[in-house]
């Protein structure tokens, strides 16, 4: 296999790999929200409620914040 053929295969596999990651990301976004681990849509409020003394949005997942509360 010469270098050009190798480059072509490498480009093909890299493209497939990166497309795979992109699709995995879609599944990840929806699945984590369905499981209640994340709430992405509430992040939209960052633009609407942007006063310096507004309440910050909790960055951690819903599940982990619940765990923290349980520990308290």
């Amino acid at each position, binding site marked *: 296999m010469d270098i050009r053929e190798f480059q072509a295969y490498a480009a093909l596999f890299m493209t497939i790999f990166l497309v795979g990651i992109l699709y995995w990301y879609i599944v990840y976004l929806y699945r984590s929200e369905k499981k209640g681990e994340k709430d992405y*849509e509430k992040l939209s409020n960052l*633009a609407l409620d942007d006063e310096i003394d507004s309440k910050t949005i909790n*960055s951690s997942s819903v599940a982990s914040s619940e765990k923290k509360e349980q520990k308290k």
Partner: protein
Amino acid sequence: MQSNAALEYDYSVAKLFTYATILFGFLAMLIGTLIAAQLAFPELNYLIGEYGTFSRLRPVHTNTAIFGFTVGGVFATFYYVGQRVLKVSMAESKFLMFIGKLHFWIWFFGALFATITLLMGYSQSKEYAQYEWPADVAIVILWVLWGISIFGLIGIRREKVLYISMWYYIATFLGIAMLYIFNNMAVPTYFASGGLGSIMHSVSMYSGANDAMVQWWYGHNAVAFGFTVPIVGMIYYFLPKESGQAIYSYKLSLLSFWGLMFLYLWAGAHHLLYSPVPDWVQTMASVFSIVLILPSWGSAINMLLTMKGEWNQLTENPLIKFMVLASTFYMLSTLEGPIQAIKSVNAIAHFTDWIPGHVHDGVLGWVTFMIMASLFHMAPRMFKREIYSRKLIEVQFWLQTTAVVLYFTSMWIAGITQGMMWRAVDEYGNLMYSFIDTVTVLHPYYAIRTLSGVLYFVGFVIFAYNMIKTMSSSRELTEEPQFKSPMA
């Protein structure tokens, strides 16, 4: 919840960038209108000797529009949006305030210096990368300062989650840093030769087809990371904030972001179709350009759907009108670009006036509309005064919308006419037209473009007047508006 009753956002740096953005916008559009007129009426080339010729002024127009107006608008909005979505004030860090102001002054004088060098004829002769090496060094310094501002603000933020607009600003910073440095790798000949020739002159480290590939990897992605990415970041903040509507789908905004990052960097070689670069590179660029429709439309549709159920605001608020039309022009432009990148279409479109037509429906309809709407939104919050005149915004909107439509329609017709005439052959296979035949046919369309330039420029002067009156003599506000910007 933290108590910061006495603390306020500090817009000193955002204001400085706002003033300069208006100034550079005025210059870029004035020169753009002049050179459009020069193409229609060549006698206008000889008004001020060598400094007034099309060849000198064209790079001044493009670079002032990019590095003066657009980049200035991006910086102005960053120093506004960055504080608000991170819930931290510039006033909280003397260091960041100093860096912000230094960033402004180096950018401002760097841009003036670079413009003068172009007028004097110093050029690397690479499109959108004409600045010679001293100006490149200034750009690298100011870019590093912007990086310190971005990551400095992020470092002291209260809001731990980075809003989607911040992702876009960070991508702009990283993307342009990488592109600009690699494309401008050059050897200053004066130092390399031991003192021969001009100190301003340099030679690119790349040559031939490699130089072309690096140049258009840069050139197209300068459009991507200068004209698309930060402007998408701006609309993700300003449209929801002005309308009071949350983004239709935050998940779609994340997905579009990564899609755009993944795809855009591969598309640059569509500027080199039918040139001596490898065929697979050309095909790959075409394919990636077409797939780019998905993340581009993902963001644009997300913005239009944000207005779902609130379309009445389109008639009630002229700023919403600007932003919705900007989003629509973004859709048009990101459909048109991929169409032009298809090899068979490119065979007709390449080197014709359809290309500047495409660039301008993006830059005038999308980029400039968004920057002006953003500055209008920021003005009442920064200057604590209502916008001076709603009527003037309406007049400006219709003047400039008419101008954009005239620009791209005339250039569509001109470009396709030009492409078809260049390719036309008679029954013996001889070319049917000489170059001057196309020039004669295109003259009316060049005149229409000049008219559109005049209309757009007049609209921009109205914008500048409205902004200056807002800053200086409009009615003072007692409290900051939450969503819709107040206007008289």
